[in-house]
């Protein structure tokens, strides 16, 4: 009744697929902000939104070539980080949290507003910005490829290759940064801002740099994902997505270079398997599980993530592999 090999194959496909890449990039950004600098960015999805829409609008409405559209997207992430950081980075951590989540919601409302339809496509979404992305692809867009027993469509395979390359470069960058004296200052700020100040470090500047860098990773994540899907819809960028990325980060372990990526892979592997299991188990005339409606499966994913996030914070704040003494968050 439950087809286990399909479950596993789908799980593996999800663990290397576009969603994993997207959330890995969001979580890499959050890792810089939350893991290393202690900043609470609850609007990471907003950075993905400005990245994706920055690129989309630049290409569709201003006729820029794709590469400069990507640049516009990244710049939009930088600008958003500056705008949000200036008022909040001198205040207590929760102000940044509130402002970032509000800003992400503002951005989503603006892009979906009917008054913006001509510009952002409103709720219809935006397409037609990313054809150039698939041109250099060595794969046949419409063909299925078999990679280690998992089937991928050619166009997805190309996105996945590019995505993981970007993730790899991002990890190298993060690795170089966090083992440098710059990373040391960031960790010091996370531990105790006043101590860092007393040692002559300009805390505000470092926090801003962390916010901008993390935001840029978010924007790049949005760009890569938008190039994969080839269409933008505002409601994809809703607040819970940020918390998916947090869940991934905490699963993999905050303040570890590979934490966000491993966390994102585990996150989507588990989510895909539970999703598929529930869908199979609740489908048909004589479902294995009868008390859950087949149509509620989508909502159950959010409940699992929510409960999982809370339980992780209570019982394993150091992540699945972390060491209890490395818990970063108990001091506050």
């Amino acid at each position, binding site marked *: 009744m439950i087809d286990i090999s399909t479950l596993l194959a789908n799980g593996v496909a999800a663990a290397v697929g576009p969603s994993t890449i997207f959330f890995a990039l969001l979580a890499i950004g959050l890792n810089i902000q939350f893991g290393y600098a202690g900043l609470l960015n609850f609007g990471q999805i907003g950075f993905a939104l400005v990245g994706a829409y920055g690129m989309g609008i630049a290409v569709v409405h201003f006729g820029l070539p794709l590469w400069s559209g990507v640049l516009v997207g990244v710049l939009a992430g930088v600008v958003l980080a500056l705008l949000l950081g200036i008022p909040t980075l001198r205040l207590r951590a929760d102000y940044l949290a509130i402002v970032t989540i509000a800003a992400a919601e503002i951005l989503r409302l603006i892009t979906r507003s009917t008054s913006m339809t001509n510009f952002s496509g409103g*709720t219809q979404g935006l397409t037609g910005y990313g054809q150039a992305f698939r041109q250099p692809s060595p794969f046949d867009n419409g063909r299925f490829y078999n990679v280690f027993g998992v089937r991928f469509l050619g166009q997805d395979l190309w996105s996945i290759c590019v995505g993981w390359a970007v993730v790899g470069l991002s990890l190298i960058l993060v690795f170089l940064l966090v083992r440098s004296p710059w990373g040391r200052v960031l960790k010091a700020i996370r531990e105790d801002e006043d101590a860092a100040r007393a040692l002559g470090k300009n805390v505000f500047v470092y926090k801003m740099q962390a916010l901008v860098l993390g935001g840029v990773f978010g924007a790049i994540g949005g760009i890569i994902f938008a190039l994969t899907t080839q269409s933008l819809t505002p409601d994809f960028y*809703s607040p819970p997505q940020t918390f998916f990325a947090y869940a991934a980060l905490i699963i993999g372990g905050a303040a570890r270079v590979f934490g966000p990526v491993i966390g994102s892979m585990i996150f989507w592997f588990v989510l895909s398997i539970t999703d598929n299991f529930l869908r199979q188990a609740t489908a048909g005339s004589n479902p294995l599980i009868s008390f859950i409606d087949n149509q509620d499966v989508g909502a159950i994913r959010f409940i699992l993530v929510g409960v999982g996030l809370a339980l992780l914070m209570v019982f394993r704040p150091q992540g699945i592999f972390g060491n209890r003494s490395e818990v970063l968050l108990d001091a506050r």
Partner: protein
Amino acid sequence: MRPRPPGLVGNSKDAAARSDDLASGWFHLSVVRALVVALVGPLIVGAVLLGAAVPALASQPPPTPPTPSQSPLPQPPSEQPSPEQGLPVSGTLRNADGRLLAGVQVQVFDSTGQQVASTTSNTSGRWELVVPRPGRYTFRIDPRSVPRGVNVLQGEVVRDVVPGTLPLVVFRFGEQRGGLQTTASAEAVRVLVDGIRFGLVIGITGIGLSLIFGTTGLTNFAHGELVTIGAVVAWTLNVTAGLQLIWATVLAVIVGAALGAVTDLAIWRPMRRRRAGLIAQLVISIGLALALRYLVLIYFGGRSESFADYTNQVERNYGFISITDKDLATIVISLAVLIGIALLLQRTRIGKAMRAVADNRDLAASSGINVERVVLFVWALAGALATLGGVLFGLSELGGTVQYEMGFSLLLLMFAGVILGGLGTAYGALVGCLVVGVLVQVSAQFIPVDLKYLGGLAVLIVILVIRPQGLLGSRARIG
């Protein structure tokens, strides 16, 4: 030393002086009585007001108040519908006077409540959109996008979409509102009253948020879900169990208080005992919010559901202002509750204890106040207020309906109001929320209606730049 949350009002010397008074058995029936009077009293006042209005239930359609942002489920990335394979649905929007309505947003929800598509009518009133696969869908007009002066008679249509046909969906519109020529000043008064009403509703819910922050330091991101659950409980009692809305609300408020107390006992008290960091607690509240919101979705569904009472009301003319009875009742109930809260804080033992704990937790504890009990009471109060606020929010702002995401959209406005007034202050929270409410309604006159919550959120950022401690906060409290 644990970081201490900012205080409400009063000062340490006060707290010490009050210690004798508070130390001995302050927590008894008088407290419960105070709570009941503070919450139920105004409800009865409201009941009288509304009761008087029942015979006047509208034969004429009501003006439809705007609804808040409808933010549907984020679509799982792998499941985005591909428009090429879908089925087209269309229609034309025509007002009762024959005018074609442009720029009206039509949304489609599938049976799980997920929004699957939306579009906007063009200049000839025509709209067309595509649903991904055959099935039963709910088509809804976004009332915020309906031009002023146009009433929606039927804004929601359920339709089975089958392949091979071109289904038309017809929405019905009513007469032009009132037919009165509104002057600019009358319009201004209307907007102001609208704003005050909305601000009071935000304030009722926001005070709980602020009190929790003040006494425990927790920024409770799950507060919006308390609002939603409260409204859903009231809706269930009202619609499913057939209880009159006022009594349904009274019961729901009690349930809400219990729910607040239970969350404190089951989650937050153990977390405090473990000395969990405030940021860890904040993330936990996020997880909780997410889980609760989608539990409500499973139970309640993704559609807006109407209360059984007070859905259709006409505006009564009071000379200087026309207002529906339910809006008037909302204002009266909110004001009465807020005055009750102020009296509670100023006059009762528990209120003074709450202020003392918020001002200085350790000093309060050493003065003989049972801090955990005070916090428990704050949670119960916040739960009760959130429930009442949820019902009033649905009744007055969402056109008499309840939605599973209503709490989250209100949460951001609560944060805006509470920060504007000064995080952790009770009276500041109220002032801030009023300002946000008025701002939202006023800004809706100048910006597209579906962006009207923007003003409230933008003020959040502005206030942080110019006066981060809020209007009534003190400088030392923002770290």
